[in-house]
């Protein structure tokens, strides 16, 4: 049991492809007050913008239906509030879909608070002079191909949405830790400039945002870092108090492990300068943080520090950037590597003969050099899988790679087996710019009656 002055914020998804059931376990057995679903990878909003342009009712995360259908009966019965960025490129559409799910489940008609304003595409369209963070070039260079532009909003506007009292809050792009910080600000009335508490809440959010990465997922190593019952890994939550104290825990009676080692890996994950992890809410410094094991599967987080937030939002600009084509085929036994290398040369020559060119091209020998490149000291493996991939603006050229690799079955060196179908995918590239916060109109709209 936990004390009454504690708010428990659970982490129900760390990507749109995350497992479904652990969130239900959290809702049923985790004694949580909030269930947060973080479901947007860098390019997801671009992809959903494309779905929305084909069908104006779509554009929210396709996983919204399955996730809500599963957890809504429990969450409504227990008064667990849901916070999620599953609104993606269409938070209003997502809100309508969520309300319909509730009605269909016989739970009644309820309101959804929707966070709007992250879509800044019409704004940046006239700001071609903004510089891309990645290469310093003007935004203008990718504007003609732009599909989406979304600001990473902060916890303030999500907190405002929670203040409406709606049982569900849906947003588009919001910084991942902010989704978790917002319920804490709402519950305890923390001000945006209450830096010690904002720092603790942001650190907690960062630890929770990848679900099982803090409970033994992406961690285990047989005999070295064993994880019990990893197939039934449980999802984490944070126990937070008004003074900003934070303890991370996980659903009881689930697999996995939660300790200082798992928390340390997640705390440093995707951080660059550890004194300056920039979120919309603050600039977090993790170099003073102490992680301590308080009990089995419970880790206390203390001494997070922060400086005030920057005056800008990071904006991800998604744009269409051609195609990636791929093909694969396998070679085994004597001289497997030599035959695969010969095969690669044949494919390259065939592509050249047809006049195809590529902005980037890559040959991998899976089993030998595909993950960490080629170094001379490794022994040759018994079998390898040849993989060839190229990026181009010509769809035919992209398709030709897989076509020619597959044709090695008949026309290449002896004994090629198991080629895959030619693969072609659209490239949705993402670059970013900084936009003054004062130019962005983050706001809350309520769908349905409160």
């Amino acid at each position, binding site marked *: 049991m936990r004390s009454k002055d504690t708010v428990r914020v659970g982490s129900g998804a760390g990507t749109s492809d995350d497992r479904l059931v652990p969130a239900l376990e959290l809702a049923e057995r985790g004694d949580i007050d909030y269930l947060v679903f973080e479901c947007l990878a*860098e390019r997801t909003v671009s992809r959903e913008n494309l779905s929305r342009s084909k069908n104006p009712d779509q554009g929210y995360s396709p996983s919204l239906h399955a996730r809500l259908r599963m957890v809504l009966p429990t969450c409504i019965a227990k008064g667990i509030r849901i916070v999620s960025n599953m609104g993606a490129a269409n938070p209003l559409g997502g809100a309508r879909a969520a309300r319909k799910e509730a009605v269909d489940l016989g739970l009644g008609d309820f309101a959804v608070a929707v966070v709007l304003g992250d879509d800044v595409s019409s704004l940046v369209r006239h700001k071609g002079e903004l510089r891309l963070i990645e290469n310093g070039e003007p935004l203008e260079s990718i504007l003609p191909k732009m599909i989406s532009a979304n600001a990473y909003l902060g916890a303030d506007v999500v907190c405002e949405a929670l203040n409406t009292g709606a049982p569900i809050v849906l947003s588009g792009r919001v910084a991942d830790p902010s989704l978790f910080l917002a319920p804490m600000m709402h519950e305890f009335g923390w001000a945006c400039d209450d830096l010690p508490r904002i720092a603790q809440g942001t650190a907690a959010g960062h630890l929770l945002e990848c679900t099982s990465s803090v409970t033994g997922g992406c961690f285990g190593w047989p005999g070295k870092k064993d994880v019990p019952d990893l197939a039934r890994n449980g999802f984490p939550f944070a126990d937070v108090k008004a003074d900003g104290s934070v303890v991370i825990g996980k659903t009881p009676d689930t697999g996995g492990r939660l300790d200082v*080692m798992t928390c340390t890996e997640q705390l440093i994950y*995707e951080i660059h*300068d*550890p004194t300056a992890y920039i979120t919309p809410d603050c600039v977090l410094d993790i*170099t003073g943080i102490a992680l301590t094991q308080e009990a089995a599967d419970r880790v206390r987080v203390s001494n997070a520090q922060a400086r005030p937030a920057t005056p800008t939002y990071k904006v991800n600009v998604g744009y269409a950037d051609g195609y990636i084509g791929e093909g694969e085929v396998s070679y085994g036994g004597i001289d497997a590597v030599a035959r695969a290398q010969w095969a690669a040369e044949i494919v390259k020559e065939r592509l050249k003969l047809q006049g195809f060119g590529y902005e980037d091209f890559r040959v991998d020998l*899976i089993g030998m050099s595909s993950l960490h490149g080629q170094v001379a000291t490794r022994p040759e493996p018994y079998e390898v899988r040849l993989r060839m*991939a190229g990026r181009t603006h010509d769809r035919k050229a992209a398709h030709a790679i897989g076509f020619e690799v597959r044709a090695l079955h008949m026309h290449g060196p002896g004994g090629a087996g198991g080629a895959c179908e030619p693969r072609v995918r659209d490239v949705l*590239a993402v670059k970013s710019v900084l936009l003054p916060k004062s130019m962005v109109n983050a706001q809350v709209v309520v769908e349905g009656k409160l």
Partner: protein
Amino acid sequence: MSVRVYDLAHSRAGDKGNTSNISVICYDARHWEFLERELTEARVAEAFKHLARGPVRRHPLRNLKAFNFVIENALGGGVTVSLAQDIHGKSYSNVMLAIELPDPE
């Protein structure tokens, strides 16, 4: 005699754009100074030279008995455009763990 980073520390790799960040976390805090002395930016850059253009920057995290290595130009342009199989470079932590260092004893 030599020791691998693997023998003293665990590690996880993450991505942001074309930059990889790889943590190195001591099992035993007593090894932190040894790694501070031996696991230099230059040594890590050497281990990744066929994978990343760099530069490599090391951030100490004494409080977590850890280091954070930030390696730029490491991910084939970043997840959205990379031709690699492992577009996030999640497996890069294993390149870090395989680095050999002089025996601390």
